[in-house]
């Protein structure tokens, strides 16, 4: 069978196709069809000839097989130093082989490549910082994911996710109406306690356009309210766009580059429409990576920058604390030992380690660094889309042990994780291994430590 009904090389771009996939619980039929899926070796090789250029080929060719990337990889460490988990081995046995065979690979091989690209690499890019030649196997596995996606070999959840982006411009089925309703609902609900609280939608020329992760309106709308309260306390002139509010990109995790472009262009269009001075992105790592770091390239913006200056939430918080827009009440600082989870996507891959330290120095009395930390921190264990893929739950849970041990070594009882993926991974880590920790985004911690001016105090206090 060349193409399945659910599992095929076609992208998901209609609600009918999307609903059919969603109805296939756990992707049972999807994965069984995948076993029959033909590999179009010609198309695969044509793509590689066009896109696998000197940078990637040189990386594959000059790799000295020295093994210095081994200990950089949390999967290698978590799997009892299995030689098959060495990043160089993983990429040579997948992309390296595909090139050697000029794309002439079979279904079994593509299954192996898919399993490697999604369950043995979270694209955290840590290996790139340990290779003397600067070989970035995270970048290469992201590239491999694109090759797999085009051939139809992609985990079920991510095929759905990339379809969501194509249809809803969001990783979940949230329409413009749903989103605007949620904003109004939250403003109203929390406005009772916080007089004057607003969530302005589509306000022109604001100082800040705030954008989120679809999970927030869908599952944690209070996060949006907390953001609003903090902007309110800081006296910011801000807005959210009615369209182009979603920063995340499951399409990036899926390797669906077409959907990546569609998604980020919806955000850039909101920038053009509302003309805000700058954008602030919620506490999400891959969202920032997708829309701010990689997005301009997908959209073909030659400066490599978003149309307006874009900040991650930690940058805004650090700035607000620095300029005194937000002040922390020393008496309310967190007393228990706290550690901080550096997100690969905005720390190693976007350089924001110092913002996090600025914030922690103000809100926590007993801040403890993980070792290693900052640019060299390990992935939470759930990055690169891994948290959301049922097929690889076991592999993900094994990978979590590195983060578990890092947290345990700090002795901290609270892990601050301003990234949805990290937050989820640490929550799941506690669920699986029960080490007695709490985890939190920054917003609730800021709200409980910030100085609230008398006239802004909640009415019920």
């Amino acid at each position, binding site marked *: 069978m060349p193409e399945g009904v659910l599992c095929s090389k076609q992208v998901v771009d209609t609600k009918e196709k999307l609903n059919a996939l969603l109805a296939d619980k756990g992707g049972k039929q999807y994965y069984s069809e995948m076993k029959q899926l033909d590999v179009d070796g010609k198309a695969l090789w044509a793509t590689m000839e066009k896109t696998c250029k000197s940078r990637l080929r040189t990386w594959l060719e*000059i790799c000295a097989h020295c093994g210095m990337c081994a200990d950089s990889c949390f999967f290698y460490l978590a799997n009892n130093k299995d030689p098959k988990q060495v990043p160089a081995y993983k990429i040579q046995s997948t992309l390296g082989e595909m090139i050697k065979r000029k794309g002439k690979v079979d279904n079994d091989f593509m299954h192996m490549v898919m399993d490697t690209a999604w369950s043995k690499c979270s694209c955290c890019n840590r290996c790139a*910082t*340990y290779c*003397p030649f600067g070989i970035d196997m995270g970048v290469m596995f992201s590239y491999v994911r694109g090759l797999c996606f085009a051939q139809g070999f992609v985990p079920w959840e991510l095929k759905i996710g990339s379809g969501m982006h194509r249809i809803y411009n969001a990783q979940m089925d949230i329409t413009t109406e749903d989103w605007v309703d949620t904003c109004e609902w939250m403003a109203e609900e929390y406005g009772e306690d916080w007089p004057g609280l607003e969530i302005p939608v589509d306000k022109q020329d604001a100082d800040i356009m705030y954008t989120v992760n679809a999970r927030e309106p869908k599952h944690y709308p209070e996060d949006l309210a907390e953001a609003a309260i903090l902007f309110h306390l800081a006296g910011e002139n801000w807005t959210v766009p009615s369209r182009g509010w979603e920063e995340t990109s499951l399409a990036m995790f899926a390797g669906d580059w077409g959907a990546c472009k569609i998604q980020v262009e919806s955000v850039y269009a909101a920038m053009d429409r509302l003309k805000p001075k700058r954008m602030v992105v919620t506490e999400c790592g891959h969202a920032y990576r997708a829309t701010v770091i990689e997005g301009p*390239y997908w959209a073909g913006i030659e*400066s*490599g920058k978003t149309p307006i200056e874009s900040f991650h939430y930690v940058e805004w918080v650090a700035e607000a604390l620095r300029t005194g827009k937000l002040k922390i009440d020393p008496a309310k600082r967190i007393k228990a030992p706290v550690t901080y989870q550096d997100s690969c996507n905005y720390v190693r891959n*976007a350089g924001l380690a110092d913002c996090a330290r600025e914030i922690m120095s103000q809100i926590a009395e007993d801040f403890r660094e993980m070792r290693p930390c900052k640019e060299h921190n390990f992935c939470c264990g759930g990055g690169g889309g891994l948290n959301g893929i049922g097929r690889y739950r076991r592999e993900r849970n094994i990978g979590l042990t590195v983060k578990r041990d890092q947290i345990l070594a700090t002795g901290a009882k609270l892990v601050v994780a301003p990234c949805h993926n990290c937050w989820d991974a640490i929550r799941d880590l506690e669920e699986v291994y029960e080490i007695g920790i709490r985890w939190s985004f920054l917003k609730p911690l800021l709200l409980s430590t910030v100085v609230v001016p008398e006239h802004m105090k909640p009415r019920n206090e």
Partner: protein
Amino acid sequence: MYELVTGPLAWIAFGIFIIGLLYRLVWYIRGLNWQLDRVTYSENVAYGIKGALRSIFYWLLPFGTHSWRFYPGFTILVFVFHICLLATPVFLTGHNVLLLERWGISLPSLPEGLTDLMTVAVMVAALFIVLRRIALPEVRNLTKPNDFLVLGITVAPFLTGFLAYHQVGGYDFWIVAHVLCGEIMLVAIPFTKLSHFLLFFLSRAQLGMDFGIKRGGMKNKGMAW
């Protein structure tokens, strides 16, 4: 025979070495693509240059990066091997005498006792690199026969040169073998992993630009390699 290997064959070997590397250089740079690589090579140039230089500098410094510090034993091996490998032939009295005879120019020479020691260092370091390759499962699993061949090509000129210098057996045989091995190495550089002679710098510069321009270099002091 000596005239042949130090004459026409030497010219051919150096020719292939230089043209081969030039081809590699042009091919590498022409194959870079700002949109595919997602690095604006020709925008934000100052950040790119800074990132590239930092990326090369810290990795050329022994123990200059987290990675070098993480593997101290191997780091010592790598640096001893490469420094001696590159410095010995350039500052060797015998080579400079030859240069002076043929072209009337020469570079400063290191004492013969020292270059002898450096030659031994190359061979000993190579031996430990081989042992490490066999002993460590994570390295053994990556290893291909080619890895030994390339190391053999690299060490051969040192071994034969050492034997010739100490006149173990016939000098005439070893000196010809030495020159030939050197030529094989030169020719092998553009065609094998030895191309990292050049590509190390290009690849490091590229990733340095990536981090310098896109992955944080414009917002922090530069990647903490």
